[in-house]
């Protein structure tokens, strides 16, 4: 479980996170949703220490990450897997080397063992056999999937994914959502998914946090999300005609 307590983050004059508190439970997909620029990525980066919040703390299973120094943070970081919004694959390495990189750095496995793990991860994201391609030769959606494969290579205890579905077709998108959910349940990971894709929200949103202008506006599950009277959330959820029609039907 990851507990976030009263996180504040400002960039210059821009107060992006205004005291966010939330619990992210293990063995479950925790979603952070919200409009563009609402601070989702910033919250994620504060949690993993890529941004230092001015106030507040992030606690990984009782370990206060925000108060740790570089050396002690490494221990938690080796338990973290993260997919970046822009994939952040290493340009100078091919797909196989990208996924193998954390294994090379932190394990003493033999090459054969590592290669097996790489191929296993690639299979799970439907990219078997693409080992030797370089990031420049991949489509945006393929990069995303390699990013996920790299994030899960070390069997992380905490999985952070920033917009896994943007740039993917609906079918692959569902494959990725299902994969994330499977992994979460199988390995009891604490998974945090940033998204603004309503399909994902309805599909895997067991625990959802809705950010609006840097504040936690709403919290609940996909079963509750369509029945709230929270105006901003309704605007977000029912932005599409399709969802609006669905809501009318329900009534």
């Amino acid at each position, binding site marked *: 479980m990851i507990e976030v307590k009263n996180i504040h983050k400002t960039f210059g004059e821009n107060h992006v996170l205004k005291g966010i508190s939330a619990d992210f439970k293990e063995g479950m997909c925790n979603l952070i949703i919200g409009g563009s620029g609402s601070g989702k990525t910033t919250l994620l980066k504060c949690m*993993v220490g890529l941004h230092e919040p001015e106030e507040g703390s992030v606690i990984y299973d009782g370990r206060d990450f925000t108060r740790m120094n*570089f050396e002690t*943070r490494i221990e938690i*970081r080796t338990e973290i897997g993260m997919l970046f*919004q822009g994939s952040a694959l290493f*340009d100078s390495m091919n797909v196989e080397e990208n996924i193998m990189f*954390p294994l*090379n750095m932190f394990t003493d496995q033999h090459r054969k063992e590592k290669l097996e793990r790489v191929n296993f991860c690639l299979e799970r994201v439907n990219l078997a056999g693409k080992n030797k391609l370089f990031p420049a030769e991949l489509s945006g959606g393929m990069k995303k999937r390699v990013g996920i494969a790299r994030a899960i290579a070390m069997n992380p205890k905490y999985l952070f994914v920033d917009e896994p579905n943007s740039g993917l077709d609906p079918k692959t998108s569902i494959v990725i959502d299902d994969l994330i959910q499977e992994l979460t349940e199988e390995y009891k990971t604490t998974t945090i998914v940033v998204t603004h894709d309503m399909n994902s929200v309805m599909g895997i949103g067991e625990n959802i946090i809705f950010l609006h202008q840097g504040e936690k506006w709403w919290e609940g599950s996909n079963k509750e999300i369509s029945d709230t009277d929270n105006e901003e959330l309704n605007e977000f959820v029912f932005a599409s005609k399709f969802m609006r029609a669905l809501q009318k039907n329900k009534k």
Partner: protein
Amino acid sequence: MIFHPLGKYILLLKAVFRRPEKWNIYRREIFHEMNSIGVGSLGIIAIISVFLGAVTTVQTAFQLVSDLIPKSVIGSIVRDSSILELSPTISAIVLAGKVGSSVASQIGTMRVTEQIDALEIMGINSPGYLILPKIIGGIVTIPMLVIISIGLSIFGGYLAGTASGAVTAQDFITGITTDFNPFTFTVSMVKAVIFAFIITSVSAYQGFYTDGGALEVGQSSTKAVVISCIAILFADYVIAQLLL
């Protein structure tokens, strides 16, 4: 104004020299950098060195109008100025342009595309992994380049001197073989090592703290070259003062 970046630079260096996670991975990176910095710069260093020696010979001959001074002095002057100043300093300036800009843009691109963040997340000491191999690669190969440059510069001087008739082959060789002070070579190597450190670390610093996008990567790489060049000439002066 200068103290804030200087402090950041020193802190970055402190992080660079943390204990590596895995030596064998660092070793592989070091060899890779040695190849790209050293072998990759051989061509340009060879060309400029030959011309440096040639120009020095012709101009020295032009300035030596008195018949009282033996022509062999030209050889000595070419030798000493190549070793002491021309080869280390001019090579360093050229390498600041070639190696510095590529180091800064490579690391800068990794910064703006979040590749450095990705390293950090994995628990890797990104300054160490990205910068240490470049610094070591530079410190090992740039002095070798300078030695090659010295040889080619003297050779260029010989060619230009004999071709133009400014000095005979015999005189030139007498010149370069008499009164050689080995200490000048030590000074030259000290310069090469320090310049190598400046080029790689300053450029890596510029790249590492790039903020923004592709445009800023370009600016970082320009800044890396300009600041490296100034730092090289400043260090050149300090070393000369201290050692000579």
